[in-house]
């Protein structure tokens, strides 16, 4: 169900520096790729806000621009035009090093293909973000263990990815996303490589994280996965088609 009123109200905010309740604000984001001499507009003016503690699904068919948007929100990429604030900071104009710092501190990625280092133990994988912000070793190990405990893998910390099941690997990835206590958890098709039962498990974990106050943005093309979220942004041809509130927080 489309709630025109909500959309309208939020659009009024857009373009100004957001207040502290707003984690994400995008204003007229465009991403244009050059394919030879032809311009491909992957995003055509995307504007929305996400408040602290929200659980949002971004849904749309293949090629609609979900991953492109995801990369912008995750600071892996910069928009062709438009503005993006993360926690009140304008990230759309940051350089490489600043973006790396934001990815490290503010963003916790969960990928469809897990993206764990194959030769490293679960513990070391979870430790990685802390290594890149210079957390001392003992603190680092402690934090990584706590994070693995949160996803129920305390007894698997020394296992390598190939010694873990798909669901366990994704839980390691979630532990890694959580370890730095980021502002948002960004999950791009996190259940795309999992069977339905394991998918339910992982979605249950996201629900717990949401209850604990984490802000979650989930990209999916599956309705039943999107149904776990509290709000769904439908995206089509690089535009937000509708902003749907599924249930109250």
């Amino acid at each position, binding site marked *: 169900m489309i709630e025109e009123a909500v959309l309208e109200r939020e659009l009024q905010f857009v373009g100004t520096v957001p207040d502290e309740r707003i984690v994400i604000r995008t204003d007229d984001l465009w991403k244009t790729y050059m394919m030879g001499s032809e311009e491909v507009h992957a995003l055509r003016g995307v504007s929305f806000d996400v408040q602290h503690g929200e659980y949002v699904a971004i849904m749309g068919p293949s090629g609609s621009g979900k991953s492109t948007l995801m*990369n912008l929100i*995750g600071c*892996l*990429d910069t928009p062709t035009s438009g503005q993006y604030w993360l926690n009140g900071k304008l990230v759309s104009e940051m350089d*490489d*090093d600043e973006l*790396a*710092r934001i*990815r*490290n*501190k503010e963003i916790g*990625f969960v*990928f469809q293909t897990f*993206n*764990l*280092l194959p*030769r490293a133990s679960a513990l070391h994988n979870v430790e*990685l*973000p802390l*290594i*890149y*912000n*210079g*957390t001392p*070793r003992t603190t680092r190990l402690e934090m990584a263990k706590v994070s693995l405990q949160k996803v129920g893998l305390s007894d698997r910390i020394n296992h390598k990815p190939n010694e873990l099941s798909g669901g366990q690997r994704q839980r390691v990835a979630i532990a*890694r996303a959580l370890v730095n206590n980021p502002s948002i958890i960004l999950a791009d098709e996190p259940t795309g490589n999992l069977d339905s039962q394991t998918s339910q498990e992982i979605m249950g974990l996201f629900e717990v994280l949401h209850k604990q106050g984490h802000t979650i943005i989930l990209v999916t093309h599956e309705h039943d996965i999107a149904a776990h979220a509290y709000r769904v942004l439908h995206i089509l041809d690089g535009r937000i088609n509708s902003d749907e509130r599924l249930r109250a927080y």
Partner: protein
Amino acid sequence: MHTFFEAAKIAISSILAHKLRSFLTLLGVIIGVFVVISVATVIEGANVYIKEKIATLGSGVFRVQKASLTGFGDFQKFLDALRKNPDLTIDDLYALRAGVTLADQLGAQDGTAQDIRYGNISLESVGVQGVTPDMITLSNLEVAQGRYFIEFDNDNRRDVCFIGSDVAKGLFPSSDPIGQEIRVGRDKFSVIGVATELGTVLGFSQDNFVLLPMNTFLKEYGSRRSLTFVVRAKKGADVERVHDQVRVVLRTRHKLNYNQADDFSIASDEETEQLFGSITKVVAGVAFPVVGTSLLIGGIVIMNIMLATVTERTREIGIRKSLGATRRDILVQFLVESSMLSGFGGLIGMLMAITLMSGVSKIAPVPVAVPLWAPIIAISVSTLVGLFFGIYPANRAAGLDPIVALRAD
């Protein structure tokens, strides 16, 4: 610093994960360092040897000979000089003793080889030398037992001898040699002293000798021979001026014109060391291009392998970047990896060289010593090679777009 340790850990694990590939990658560096260290140990060994065993005269001491290889350097000239120059005689010695006022000691020696015998034990081809009694202070000999010659022995051409420790052990395995008569060539000599053991030089024993007083030696083996004089300058005297005094005396006695060259040769240990030094330079000159080439090839191979590694680990780089690794973190990671890889090759090359060389020194008379700087140079040069040739691949890795890198498989 954290990323440095992380990089070191990654480097070690990736070297260990591909042991054979790492070894092949490092072949150039290993060979380069191997050659450097091998050559260095032999040169250093030779230097130590010359100092300890050959150049034993000490400072201010020099030899005067009919001809010497160190004085000419050129072997043909040396042979010509041996043929043409007049013999140096015992009378020359007396004249030098009278004329060279800046000399502290002026001794003479000469030698031949003889079979010697005691009872039914005989030793073949032992070095027999005539020496003036002052030679004890002009050589590195020390008295272990009994005494050395005194002027009385020499003046009276007494049939006494002073023997090296090999001769003492060979002829008197279980009895006291002092006072015993041994047969040297045709005549008998009584043993008055035994020398302290000197050891070997280039595999040859230095203790297989019999010394006779100079005059006894000349009586026994004939005076038509050329002696070697050993001169020590007085303390504080300029050695060059002592050389000049020697020249004046000998040139006068040999009736040389001012425009004629010396018909004798003056050689000091410094010159011996210089001769070896020039050999060292030749050896180093040959080794240098070999080392340079293998390090260059080694570096290029490392660069290629690192490029392959970067491609192979593109996904890993993407993951690290997505987790907050900066360009610099990735750059450091791959630079540390290539330097450690290469430094590890240097370590292997060095250990191989030292192992091989110490093995060689056990079975062949090649003196070997590992100079202190060798391990430092080996590790640091090879590390620098890895660092330098790692720059290009590491830069590539650091410059990867995180999205593209994450999509790689």
